[in-house]
């Protein structure tokens, strides 16, 4: 690797992963592997590590979300809205990590055809956005409810119940339901992800257009200024936190509730305690009303089964509420004034408009601005509904299958089900169904699957300790794919930085890293590296979080941290938005922060310039 020329990354076909990862390939479907039969094409492409969607080694079943977006994101660009020179994003797995590639533009005649369709189809969406959004949300909620309603058999009964046989036989039984239910969930997940991109590609395209107009008018404008102009305050992703604030307020107006919430007991104990008094019950009632959908927020990105959600990690929301109640009692204000945020945004835009010199430019700016504002809410809102609410429902359903498989002796732990990919699980379920159908005392291959799950866990653990190469293949000559530019911030500089990183002798020698200046301000303090999202409980007030990406469900944490640094994420990434909202300095998209910085290092985060300095290494 060290001998690689500076202008390219390793050939994906020659790339060797550490020995401890041996056998990783079997976890994923074959089209996810770099393969000799597609070798000529694959080695000419540029593959970079996707830390937004796959910050951690990928558990086999969690790959379903990636599979789904590879298809959906790409099809909207290539076949639905037809962004002329852009093609899709391809994915590959290496050693448990996902690499993605924005495919080079198609031949000129295809671009021409697409341009025509683009004009016809895209503008319609902008003209009818509000109506389309309402329809979108309605159908998405229906889909989520349908998924929640899928019945996963909890048992395989000794004999099928009487009412299924006479007087009207159902004709198909649990052996069928089992497999049908899983298929249904898979199909619903794919459908949800088809919906996910319904307007997202266009939103990103519009954002890039607006950013370009602004940069022409104000050549040195920062990405964070552009972000501030378009970001909205009334965003679904912030609702969970708002609900917590109002629950905290309610608590202070009820008798005895605050004291229970402030105590050091577990959430479960608190709930039992609250249930004893009328005021407590009133509060619990309110909590339960807010729960669906708002507390279906993931504790992480929503992409990995082990992140958990507020609904199945109640200590997290109860911990936040404790903090809010205490602050309320000290007379502090806990809510962010959303009206003010909106007003501030409008004031910022007005001030920039005031600096534009000609009427023609002012009109063009307003046209561009109205175009992005029409649709930007989509970028902010779809996230909660898909990655958080919908995924949380999915994980819950899958765990029901896990329970059944444990009962059937096929796996050791409920979560071992995530060690099998979506093509393998029907195999396990079919075996369970077959065993049940065959009668009693039928031997099953439980030990085979248990060993497999264990082996895969070991591989994934080893992969966590491995630092994957940032990219593979040949850097591209041009990029037209809007997600690549916007979400991953893939720019010439980024690629150069990575190439530099390839040759960096050791991590300890690096004392300064660069990223996007995504939220202004400067802060110095001890770093807390959270490579795994669940490590958040280690975080102490006044620390600076360093993580692959941050997430809005951590929102209440942002009042306690000094700054945030991420590996991946442009200026409109979720991390950047939240940090600006909370006035916390941040540098995003450093590529290497979680690798270079260690917990306890004293670091200086300059959110104005995008530089993170390691002031003093931890002993």
């Amino acid at each position: 690797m060290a001998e690689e020329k500076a202008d390219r990354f390793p050939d994906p076909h020659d790339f060797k992963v550490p020995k401890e990862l041996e056998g990783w390939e079997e976890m994923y479907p074959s089209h996810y592997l770099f393969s000799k039969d597609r070798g000529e094409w694959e080695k000419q492409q540029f593959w970079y590590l996707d830390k937004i969607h796959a910050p951690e080694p990928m558990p086999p079943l969690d790959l379903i979300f990636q599979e789904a977006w590879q298809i959906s994101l790409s099809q909207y660009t290539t076949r639905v809205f037809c962004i002329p020179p852009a093609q899709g994003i391809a994915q590959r797995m290496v050693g448990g990590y996902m690499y993605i590639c924005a495919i080079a533009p198609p031949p000129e005649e295809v671009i021409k055809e697409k341009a025509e369709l683009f004009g016809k189809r895209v503008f319609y969406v902008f003209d009818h956005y509000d109506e389309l959004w309402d329809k979108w949300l309605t159908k998405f909620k229906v889909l989520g409810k349908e998924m929640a309603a899928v019945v996963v058999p909890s048992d395989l009964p000794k004999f099928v119940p009487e009412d299924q046989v006479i007087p009207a036989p159902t004709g198909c039984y649990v052996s069928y339901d089992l497999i049908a239910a899983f298929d249904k969930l898979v199909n619903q997940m794919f459908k949800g992800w088809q919906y996910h991109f319904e307007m997202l590609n266009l939103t990103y395209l519009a954002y890039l257009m607006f950013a370009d107009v602004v940069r022409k008018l104000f050549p040195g404008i920062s990405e964070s200024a552009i972000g501030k102009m378009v970001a909205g305050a009334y965003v679904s992703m912030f609702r969970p936190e708002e609900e917590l604030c109002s629950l905290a307020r309610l608590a202070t107006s009820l008798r005895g509730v605050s004291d229970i919430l402030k105590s050091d007991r577990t959430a479960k104990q608190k709930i039992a305690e609250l249930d004893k008094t009328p005021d407590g019950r009133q509060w619990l009632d309110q909590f339960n009303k807010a729960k669906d959908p708002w507390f279906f927020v993931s504790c992480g990105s929503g992409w990995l089964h082990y992140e958990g959600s507020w609904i199945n990690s109640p200590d997290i929301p109860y911990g936040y509420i404790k903090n809010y109640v205490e602050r309320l009692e000290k007379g502090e204000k806990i809510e962010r004034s959303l009206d003010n945020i909106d007003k501030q945004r409008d004031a910022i835009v007005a001030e920039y408009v005031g600096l534009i010199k000609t009427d023609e430019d002012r009109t063009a700016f307003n046209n561009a601005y109205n175009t992005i504002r029409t649709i930007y809410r989509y970028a902010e809102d779809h996230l909660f509904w898909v990655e958080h609410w919908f995924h949380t429902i999915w994980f819950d359903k899958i765990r029901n299958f896990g329970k059944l498989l444990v009962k059937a002796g096929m796996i050791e732990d409920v979560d071992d089900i995530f060690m099998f990919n979506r093509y393998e699980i029907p195999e396990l379920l079919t075996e369970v169904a077959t065993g049940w159908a065959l009668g009693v005392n039928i031997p099953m291959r439980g030990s085979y699957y248990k060993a497999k799950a264990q082996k895969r866990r070991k591989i994934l653990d080893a992969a966590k300790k491995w630092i994957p190469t940032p990219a593979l293949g040949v850097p591209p000559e041009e990029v037209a794919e809007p997600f690549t530019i916007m979400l991953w911030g893939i720019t010439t500089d980024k690629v150069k930085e990575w190439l530099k990183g390839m040759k960096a002798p050791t991590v300890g020698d690096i004392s300064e890293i660069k990223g996007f200046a995504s939220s202004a301000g400067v802060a110095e303090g001890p770093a807390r590296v959270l490579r795994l999202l669940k490590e958040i409980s280690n975080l102490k007030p006044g620390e600076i979080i360093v993580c692959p990406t941050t997430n809005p469900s951590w929102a209440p944490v942002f009042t306690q941290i000094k700054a945030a640094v991420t590996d991946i994420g442009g200026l409109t990434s979720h991390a950047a938005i939240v940090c600006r909202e909370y006035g916390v300095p941040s540098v995003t998209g450093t590529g290497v922060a979680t690798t270079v910085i260690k917990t306890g290092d004293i670091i200086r985060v300059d959110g104005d310039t995008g530089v993170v300095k390691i002031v003093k290494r931890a002993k």
Partner: protein
Amino acid sequence: MTEDEMNYVLNLKDLDKKAISVVGGKNASLGEMIKAGIHVPPGFAVTTDCYLKFISETGIDDKIYETLKDVQPEDVSSLDRASERIKACIQEGSISGDIREAIEYGYLGLCRACAVADVPVAVRSSATAEDLPTASFAGQQDTYLWIQGVYNVISHVQSCWASLFTPRAIAYRIKNQFPHEKVFISVGVQKMVNSRTAGVLFTLNPTNGDPSKVVIEGSWGLGETVVSGSVNPDRFVVDKVIMEASVKEISAKHIECVFDVKEGRVINANVDPKRQCTCCLQDEEIRELVKIAKHIEKHYGCPMDIEWAIDADLGFPESIFIVQARPETVWSRRKAESVIGKKSGYDLLMEQAMKRIRIPQ
């Protein structure tokens, strides 16, 4: 004090841009800023009337016009000779009682206002044809720093008067057909800022004309090192609207212009190596400077070029002073042309959709 004497010296805070003919551009601008609520060091202007009174009652005026009558701007030695002669006349000319009294009145008033005896002042010329956007005479007259005591103030006022007749100034006026007798000079006497950090700023980015930026350049000590380009200053590019710095360049600022007590004058001292690369401005100072810059730009209604200083003895934000402001000349003169053109949201979207970003290999 007689009425005449009252017209010889005017407090800066009583001035505005209408006073340009009697106090010159620089002084009028300072007065204008004080009126607009900008923090400017206190001081007074010695008016053009005072200068006229001096050259007429001493008969120096006739000598000047006589001497300059036949001077050719290309003839360097005759230019030099004429300059020397006139400057000597002005420098050595005896000041009458009423002028002396007026300046003394102004200076002692300033000492009282500052509650410092022999308050150190900056004595600067402020020419009446100077600082107009179309005819920048900037830098053609002299500045004297850290002057203390009435005697020294008066003598440096005379030096400023004399600076109207440097060979360069004479040549410039002849070339540009400014009649010598129409160019009068006023002098500004202003409390010295005990400058910890000073420099210049522009209310647009002078490199690309970006109107959304304030560009600040600063260095240790007095601003002279920045203005003259004798140090590489620290450089900050700050967005006017969201008030974030997009560039913060810290340079090795090897010298600083400071007052040397032993020598009794301003010198360029070496900066110790550790402080050289320390940022010369605090974040709050940068933000405050940007706020002031926006205020001044708004007041004048055009992009501005501003000199500022931060006093070591005062607490923030009282420590921040504006010592000079003039219209920016390069970008202001350009005709405003549309950058985007006449385009609808859809035109722009289509354009974006067709775009490919090249990544050079």
